[in-house]
C-alpha cells in the first residue's frame, strides 16, 4: 500500500470507525478492523493481523489505565493468567508465520461466530456480581487471587473469590493463542471463562481481561514486527484512528446502550464471517 494522503485519511477513518464500534460494543475492535483491511483495502492477511495486534495494544493500554485506576482490574489474577496468555500468544504468532493467508482467513471467519454470539447475548447477562456475603461464606480456592472493588452501579463494594484457576489458565492459553494467531484481543474466550468457571464478577472479568490484552498482544507484536508484518504508515494511521475512535466510543457508550445496536452488529459480524469464508474458499481454488 502506498502512503498517499488519501490512503492515510481513509485508514484513519477506518480506525476511527472500528474504535467507536469496539468501545460501544465492548469488543477489542480487531474483529471489525481485519475484515475492513483485508476485504476493503486489499491488505494481505498477515499485514492486517500485524496492524490489528498493535491497535489492540493501543486500545487496551488506553482503556486499562482507567480500569486500573478505579481498582476494577484484578492485577494479581491478571499477572498469573498472563503467564498462560503470553505463552499462547508467542505460540500463535509463530504458528501464523507457517500458515497461509487463506487458512488464517478461514480461522478468523470461524472465530467471528462465537464473537457474534457473545455480542448478541451481551456481557451483562452472564451472572450478577458477587456481593460481600459471598466473600464471607465462599472459599477462595486460589489463595489470595480474589479481589474487591466498589461498584458504582450497585452502590456497594463487591468482594469475590477465584475458583478453578486451572480453567482460567486453560482459557487464557487459548485466548492468547487466538490473539497471537489472528490479531484479536481474545477477550471473547477469556471473559466468559473467568465469569462462568472462575466465578469472577463480569465487570472485574472484563476489566482484568482488558488489562491483560495489551500485554498479550505485545508478546506477539514483537514477532510480527520482526517479520515485517507491521507496516509503518498503515499501522500508524489505523492506531491513531482507533485511539480517537475508542475515546469517542467511550463517551457514546454512556448514551447508546441499545440491545438493538448490539444485535445488528452481531448479525453484521456473521455476514462478515460468511464473506471472509467465501473469499478464502474462492482464493483457495
Amino acid at each position: 500500500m502506498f502512503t498517499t494522503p488519501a490512503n492515510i485519511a481513509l485508514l484513519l477513518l477506518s480506525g476511527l470507525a472500528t474504535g467507536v464500534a469496539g468501545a460501544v460494543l465492548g469488543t477489542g475492535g480487531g474483529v471489525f478492523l481485519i475484515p475492513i483491511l483485508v476485504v476493503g483495502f486489499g491488505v494481505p492477511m498477515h499485514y492486517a493481523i500485524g496492524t490489528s495486534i498493535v491497535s489492540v495494544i493501543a486500545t487496551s493500554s488506553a482503556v486499562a489505565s482507567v480500569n486500573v485506576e478505579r481498582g476494577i482490574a484484578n492485577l494479581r489474577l491478571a499477572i498469573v493468567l498472563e503467564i498462560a496468555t503470553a505463552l499462547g500468544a508467542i505460540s500463535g504468532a509463530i504458528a501464523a508465520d507457517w500458515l497461509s493467508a487463506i487458512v488464517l482467513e478461514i480461522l478468523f471467519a470461524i472465530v467471528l461466530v462465537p464473537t457474534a454470539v457473545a455480542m448478541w447475548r451481551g456481557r451483562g447477562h452472564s451472572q450478577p456480581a458477587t456481593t460481600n456475603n459471598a466473600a464471607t461464606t465462599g472459599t477462595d480456592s486460589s489463595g489470595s487471587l480474589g479481589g474487591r472493588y466498589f461498584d458504582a452501579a450497585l452502590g456497594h463494594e463487591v468482594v469475590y473469590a477465584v475458583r478453578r484457576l486451572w480453567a482460567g489458565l486453560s482459557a487464557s492459553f487459548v485466548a492468547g493463542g487466538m490473539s497471537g494467531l489472528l490479531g484479536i484481543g481474545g477477550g471473547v474466550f477469556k471473559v466468559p471463562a473467568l465469569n462462568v468457571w472462575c466465578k469472577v464478577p463480569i465487570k472485574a472479568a472484563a476489566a482484568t481481561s482488558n488489562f491483560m490484552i495489551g500485554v498479550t498482544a505485545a508478546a506477539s507484536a514483537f514477532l510480527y514486527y520482526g517479520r515485517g508484518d507491521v507496516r509503518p504508515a498503515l499501522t500508524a494511521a489505523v492506531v491513531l484512528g482507533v485511539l480517537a475512535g475508542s475515546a469517542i466510543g467511550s463517551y457514546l457508550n454512556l448514551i447508546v446502550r441499545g440491545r438493538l445496536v448490539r444485535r445488528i452488529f452481531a448479525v453484521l459480524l456473521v455476514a462478515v464471517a460468511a464473506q471472509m469464508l467465501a473469499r478464502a474458499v474462492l482464493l483457495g481454488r
Partner: protein
Amino acid sequence: MAEAGKNSPRLQKWIYVILRVGVVVSGLVLIGGLALVLVAHQPRPEAAPPTVVGLVWRVLHGDGVAVIYAGLLLLMLTPLVQVAAATLGWLVTGPRRFALAAALVLTLLVLSLWLGVG
C-alpha cells in the same frame, strides 16, 4: 503490604502512569512520523523494519518512516515496562509470589522482543 483482595494503590498508580504516558508519547511520535512522511512526499512502498541502530540513525536524520517505527516500538514496549514495574512493585510491597509471576511474564516478553527486534 496491600489489603487482602485489593491492588496496592502505589502499584496501581505506577501502572496507570506508565500506560497513560506510553499511549500519549507513542501517539505523538506517530503523528509526527506520519506528518513527516506526508510532508516529505514519500508515496513509496515501505521498507522492512530497520535494526535498532539503523532506526536511531534514521530518526536523527528526520526520516518519517523511521519515526513511525520508533512510535510503534514505544507503543509495543509500554506493556513490557508496565510488567517490569509490576515485578518491582510486588518485590517491594509483596506478596513476592506475584513478583515471581510478573518476572516470568517479563521473561516471555523479553524473549519475544529479542526474537522479533533483536
